[in-house]
């Protein structure tokens, strides 16, 4: 699953970095599996088994994603969101599910540097892209300045919206939308904190912005 593969996401063909020959091979393999299934006497196969095997072969699509700096070749169903891929298949549970409708921001990640609600995008739509989650923000044990500032200003209580707030906050500064308290509030309003730590979050962002550290 975590096989590394060189694939330049910045090349004009960034999205096509899966090799066509490989896709074809996969298709042929799937076809022969189907053929084998088709030739099995019906009495041997229960309908459910058949459904399952067909589904297994046809419901998955190869996707290559660079997640927190590690290129991963994955095979996912087209209906799998980036959020569910991270949480349920890759054990990256730092990205949170708060609504699944793009209304709360708890699932915010960076995709090619832009903040995105990962519940609103399918993994297959991001083929070849670079995804950064909260787990990939710190440099090893050294926290990102925004993480430090959140701790210092107590920019959270229960902590559930926190990864999304932090990912959004970093993007907010990078976008140039953190020039005043009012502007921060406006551009952070897609990230709900039900515990209500908003003023502390704004203070944390202001400190990082005014500190001039690279985010």
């Amino acid at each position, binding site marked *: 699953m975590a096989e590394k593969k060189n694939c330049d996401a910045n090349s004009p063909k960034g999205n096509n970095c899966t090799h066509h020959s490989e896709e074809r091979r996969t298709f042929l393999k799937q076809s022969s599996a189907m053929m084998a299934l088709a030739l099995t006497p019906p009495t041997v196969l229960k309908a459910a088994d058949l459904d399952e095997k067909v589904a297994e072969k046809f419901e998955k699509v190869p996707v290559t994603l660079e997640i927190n700096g590690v290129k991963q070749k994955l095979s996912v169903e087209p209906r799998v969101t980036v959020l569910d891929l991270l949480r349920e298949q890759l054990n990256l*549970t730092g990205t949170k599910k708060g609504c699944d409708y793009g209304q709360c921001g708890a699932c915010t990640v960076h995709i090619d540097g832009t903040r995105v609600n990962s519940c609103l995008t399918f993994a297959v739509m991001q083929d070849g892209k670079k995804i950064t989650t909260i787990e990939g923000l710190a440099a090893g044990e050294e926290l990102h300045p925004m993480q430090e500032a959140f701790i210092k200003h107590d920019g959270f*209580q229960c902590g559930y919206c926190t990864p999304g707030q932090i990912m959004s906050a970093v993007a907010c500064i990078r976008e140039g939308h953190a020039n005043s308290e009012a502007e921060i509030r406006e551009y952070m309003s897609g990230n709900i904190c039900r515990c209500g730590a908003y003023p502390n979050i704004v203070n944390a962002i202001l400190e990082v912005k005014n500190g001039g550290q690279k985010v």
Partner: protein
Amino acid sequence: MSINYIMKEQLLKDGVIGDPMNRVDGRMKVTGRARYSAEFELPNLAHAVLVTSTIAKGRIKSLETKVAERAPGVLAVISHLNSPKVPGFAQHDHPAEPPTGGQPLRVFYNDKVYSNGQPIALVVADTFERALYASSLVKAQYEQEKHTTDFEANKEKAFIPSQAKNNKNSHLADYVRGEEDAYKTADIKIEAEYTQPTEVHNPMELQAIVAHWEAEDKLTVYDKTQAVKGTQNAFAKDWNIPVENVKVIATFVGGAFGNGLHTWPHETAAIIAAKKVNRPVKLMLTREQMFFMVGYRPHTWQKIGMSATADGKLTAITHESIGQTSSYEEFTESTLQQSKMMYACPNVTTRYRILALDVSTPIWMRGPGEATGAFALESAMDEMAYALNIDPIEFRMLNHTERDPEKNLPWSTKYLKECIQLGAERIGWEKRQLKPRSLKFGEWLVGYGMGVGTFGANFRMARARARMLADGSVIIQSATTDIGPGTGTAMVQIAADALGVPPDKITFQLGNSAFPHSPSQGGSSTVSSVGSAVHAVCIALKEKIQQLGGTAFSAVTPEDITIIGGMITVPNDASAKVAYVDLLKQNNLQEIDVTAEAKPDDERKNYSMYSFSVHFAEVHVHPVTGVVRVNKVVSCADAGTIVNEKTAGNQMIGGAVGGIGMALMEAAVIDDRFGRYVTKDLAEYHVPVHADIPKVDVIFVNKPDLHVNPIGTKGIGEIALIGMAPAIANAVFNATGKRIRELPITPDKLI
């Protein structure tokens, strides 16, 4: 935010109590390493998705599950037709019969539907996507009965809760002090009705559970709950297995605000599923389901009659309320408490009723009934102040009471007057004009308002275990949870203070039912209860050290012993000095392990114990659009000792934010034709976002109340919110001259 500490010298002693320490689990939370209920990876984990009813009342005539069962990856479709029996489910027809007060919904017990959105089936599959898809293939047919969800149309069916019927001394029973309804015959009186709509907790973490039968009679759940012990007991009873065979883990809880104080149908559904498929099962509710089955602040109607003398003395208050509940459980809360005890008033009458509708059961939501009641009482106080042409602060000062008039006892401590003075100064109350529509900022109307809050300084029995390891580090355990206030951090500070051991040498572990008993994390009682247990266990640890040290410490009290850098010392006694490792060696021990209990003592009976708060708001209202902007908030609390000014301040801010939501935007709207909520996500049900929240100034009086507990804390969680909504409603009146008695104060009500 700015937090002021006055009278800090009155703190118990110099120590880490009061320090604005960073949270002990902050690093876990900012790096994504904190694991919430749905995030425990178990081998062979299956995923479950609920199917819910689309009618509010009736029975399930048929359930088509075959197509779903055949869908790829599906392991089981569970419903009342095939669910394993839950032995603890009472075997009577309606869950409300015969136990008085009813009982929680018995999921998949029979074909009855009691509310729209009730779980009727559960699809279990090998992946989440497959379970979700297959759940769309389950089709139900119903035999519908006429439902009743319209609160207003059915108010006359409200009744006295069984608890009050059976016990005239219940706090829910009708209450009369002095003359009943005395306001009716007074010259100066007001009478008004107030409405609190249904509000939904909506913590950011969706309710989730991973259920795992480790053996036939051994259950482990990773569950979102505010009470690991309570949940453990509930499931042990359900499944008729020994309590110690049930393990409940809630290491991190992503907010709850009360909705983790009850066990809900989805939890048992997941446990049933895990039994059925013989695999661990994960079930996370959708945001929509959060509106239908995990409780809410109930829709409540209130009426206040109030009279006063021309010089501003209250003569009578009558406060009545009707709160919504379900058909199968009698949910009650202390909506009328503040009216009984807050003001010096010779004649007080309260009447509390509940109204059973075909909806799911409510549950306490932050501040709970007291916040609903304070909206009515503190709005009425403002209305009366206007009727008397007296400043609302002066009116409250005139009716301040130095004794609890309900219990006829002295307060343990009460610094409400100080709170009001400090807050008034900070908000700039002197700018306020008594006459509405007097102040403007550009084209915006400006108004100031205030509201008072109070909540019982609760203390419930708790236990803690402390182990001091050979390296001098300490591990303390108690079965409490941390839904966000910073429980672990506060406990480490209390322990550091009691032991004299630096905080970084102390670990506090919570969220596990195997730990010593703790009450649920509710009712603003955690620091008082668990904090007292932690304090007690630290004293017990020192006693043990003293005892093991023999003659070295025979002349001192345990309190004198300090443990610094692995050395046990006594201040002012250089001879009493032993290395901890040597002490262990001498006694042939690996570590010291003690458990202690803290519980309220009889002294509490001599006092009335409450936390107090006052909230001030400056609002700007647009005269054309009716938009209300909260420009500034000041919240002051008399909550006893403040253990950590940073986390406590944050909790106060959070309460203010919750109060702003309650005042200006939150309402769950039911479509009575279908008995179903139409507000079912965060686009339709609005909660405050960054742009809605101004600077919140927090002020603590910070005087310990040693009658409540040895640390002197009184509780913050509820008073942070209670009284905020009326402060805003009163400020809106001051700005516009419009008295809004039905929350939330949306623009349509102001234009």
